[in-house]
């Protein structure tokens, strides 16, 4: 199974890195940029997993390690069952 996990800061959590990137884009002349939120993603490969369980299983990875629920949201995408 192949999965991609996106982890991003919750709304309301200050993202100074995203802010700095937004201001850099503006400096480069991309004046239309209003805001940037920076996140990260993980590409995960596993051994065989029943298709019905894969998503829940990867969500457990997120809750246990990949994301900090106090400040971050996550989104799981099963790329290849």
């Amino acid at each position: 199974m192949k999965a991609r996990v996106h982890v991003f800061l919750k709304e309301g959590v200050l993202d100074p890195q995203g802010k700095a990137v937004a201001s850099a884009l503006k400096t480069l002349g991309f004046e239309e940029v209003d805001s940037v939120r920076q996140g990260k993603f993980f590409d995960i490969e596993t051994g065989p997993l029943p298709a019905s369980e894969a998503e829940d299983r990867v969500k457990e990875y997120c809750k246990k390690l990949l994301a900090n629920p106090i400040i971050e949201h996550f989104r799981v995408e099963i790329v290849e069952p």
Partner: protein
Amino acid sequence: MKVGVVVFPGSNCDHDALEWSSRLLGLPTEEIWYQDRDLRGVDLVILPGGFSYGDYLRCGAMAARAPIMDEVVAHARRGGLVIGICNGFQVLCEVGLLPGALLRNRSLTFLCQDVYLRVETTGSPWTSAMRRGEILRVPIAHGDGNYFCDPETLHRLLGEDRVAFRYVSPGGTLDPEWNVNGSLDAIAGILSEKKNVLGMMPHPERASEDMVGSTDGLGIFKSVMGALCG
């Protein structure tokens, strides 16, 4: 009173903590390896500063899942004393012994400087020998020390008298300019519900000898020695 300093890969203030506890305070102190599953009967656990696991994933996230942490959590749940300094504070938040999280500094820069802390409560074993409102000069050295929690958690921390220290001006007033990392409500250190666990970003162990310019960091250990030894 026996003290244990947990050593993770990437800890770099473990020796500062050892010196603090053993040489300056004369307490029997030992290092505890992160892969061990035994605290060897210590009464007080120090999670030292540093960059455990190179700050991979999130600061303190990997260390919070190291084998020794099950024992540290069990010790804390029994009411045992635990202090997390800098990276140790980040580990305590990641493992859930303290609420909230430490975000990137507002300035996005690594800050290495002295700060002024105001003692906000004496109602804990960590601060009992100090005065409320006392000002401590203690150094910080971190890139991710910007304390954050949701409004309900902040409300609880305030209601339960669990803010141990705030960043203030040298004169002791709240001032955004002196809240150098941008922490929520200028919070520099917080306590667990039972007050036996303290997490703080500043380094009291680096301000405990005249030679380094400040002995303000000694009050924390003196408080705890008083609490334990009577």
